[in-house]
């Protein structure tokens, strides 16, 4: 029986041989990461937990066919991304129906937005401990279109390549490249707007410039 501390490959082999504990160890290793991805896509806790459950049932079902050509987490994240995209399609949200990759930021100009508030955050992992900053990031993410949020989550959190993202979203690599660029620009813009108006009490790297702008 594989130890829960074993690496992914060993756990996968044990799980393929029918070791349920090895499979549970894989689940426990990735439960929060998968949830984070799913929640990034769907912005809803119960939907994200549903996708987590569905993803691991699917992984177990197809585990005998997994040959280890890619790493387990790449395979798992691909499954999660596909499930999230399917979920968005099924939910029939209209937010993306008339989707335009250039939405929002291109209406003004193609120049990079003023990113000084983001730069002022400093260390991101320390910054998000501040509830206001965390809330600003989450709100900005929630205001993106489903497709923009999907490419951002797939790239920034899952680390999928353009080719993998193109396959998941059923489009070309060029489309992914363009979509990701516009999604980032939108996210930067939304986040900058929120951080500019953040109260001066914000901890975790609130820069003087932010405070001054908020006061002005």
């Amino acid at each position, binding site marked *: 029986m594989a130890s829960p501390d074993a690496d992914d490959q060993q756990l996968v082999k044990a799980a393929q041989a029918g070791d*349920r504990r090895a*499979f*549970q160890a894989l*689940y*426990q290793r990735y*439960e*929060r*990461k998968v*949830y*984070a*991805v799913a*929640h*990034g896509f769907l912005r809803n*806790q119960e939907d994200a*937990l549903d996708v*987590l*459950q569905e993803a*691991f*049932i699917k992984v*177990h*079902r197809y585990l005998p066919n997994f040959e280890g050509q890619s790493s387990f987490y790449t395979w798992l994240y691909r499954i999660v991304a596909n499930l999230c995209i399917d979920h968005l399609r099924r939910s029939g949200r209209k937010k993306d129906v008339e989707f335009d990759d250039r939405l929002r930021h291109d209406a003004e100009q*193609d120049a*990079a937005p003023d*990113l000084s508030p*983001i*730069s002022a*955050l400093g*260390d*991101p*992992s320390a*910054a*998000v*401990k501040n509830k206001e900053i*965390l809330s600003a*990031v*989450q709100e900005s*993410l929630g205001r993106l279109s489903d497709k923009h949020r999907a490419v*951002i*989550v797939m*790239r*920034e*959190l899952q680390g999928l*390549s*353009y080719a993998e993202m193109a396959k998941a979203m059923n489009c070309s690599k060029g489309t992914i*490249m*363009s979509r*990701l*660029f516009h999604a*980032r620009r939108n*996210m*930067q813009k939304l*986040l900058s707007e929120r951080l500019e108006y953040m109260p001066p009490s914000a901890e975790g790297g609130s820069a003087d410039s932010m405070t001054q702008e908020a006061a002005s």
Partner: protein
Amino acid sequence: MNTEATAGVNPEELHAFFDDELPADRADAIERMLAEDSDLGAEHEQLGLMRGTLRASLEAEAEAVPQARFEQVWDEIDRAIERDARLQAEADRSPSVWARVWAAFKPLRLPALAAAGAAAVTLAVISTDSEDPNKTPAVASVDETSDAKPAAPAPAPSEAETPEPTRLADANPGGQATPPEPEIAPMPVPESSEAEIHEIDFGGKNGRISNTGTVTVLYVEDVEATSSERSL
């Protein structure tokens, strides 16, 4: 010389560089430009900050979920795996030889059932006839002692399906036909007859014994030659 490798960087290309999605020669060129162009360097740095902030934010959201919720999800997954395993086992279970034979003869089932039904009806008719003790000797004696064939029933059953006449014939192995006794009233049939009685003395009168194996009939001869009977 302004080759492609040294041409200006468009914003999308900078993002692709950040994502490590450019060919090696173009990536090298952009890397050199980043060192020379501070604005370009700042924009590149912003992409890294954004990625870090998003990751930290999404991970913080995941950390906020109580562990019990993930355990509940695991319970559901575990149940689904059990269900899958059960269904798989049922699907893998090969049918037995009898099941396969049964399946192979599926087209013949209905005719066979019809034939069996007809045979059962015939047998029931024959059984009903042969259960009358008054008719039994007559049937048996006809089979054994005369060439005359009994009237065959309309749907002639097979030999294996007509045990009653055979059994009745065996009950009189000597082939001695019991004399027809139309006056004899129906008698109860004893279950067995182990005793062998060869003579009888009934009130100083003589009698004779007729033993058909399952039925023993005592005939007591009276002075007027009237008959009475007892069954043992």
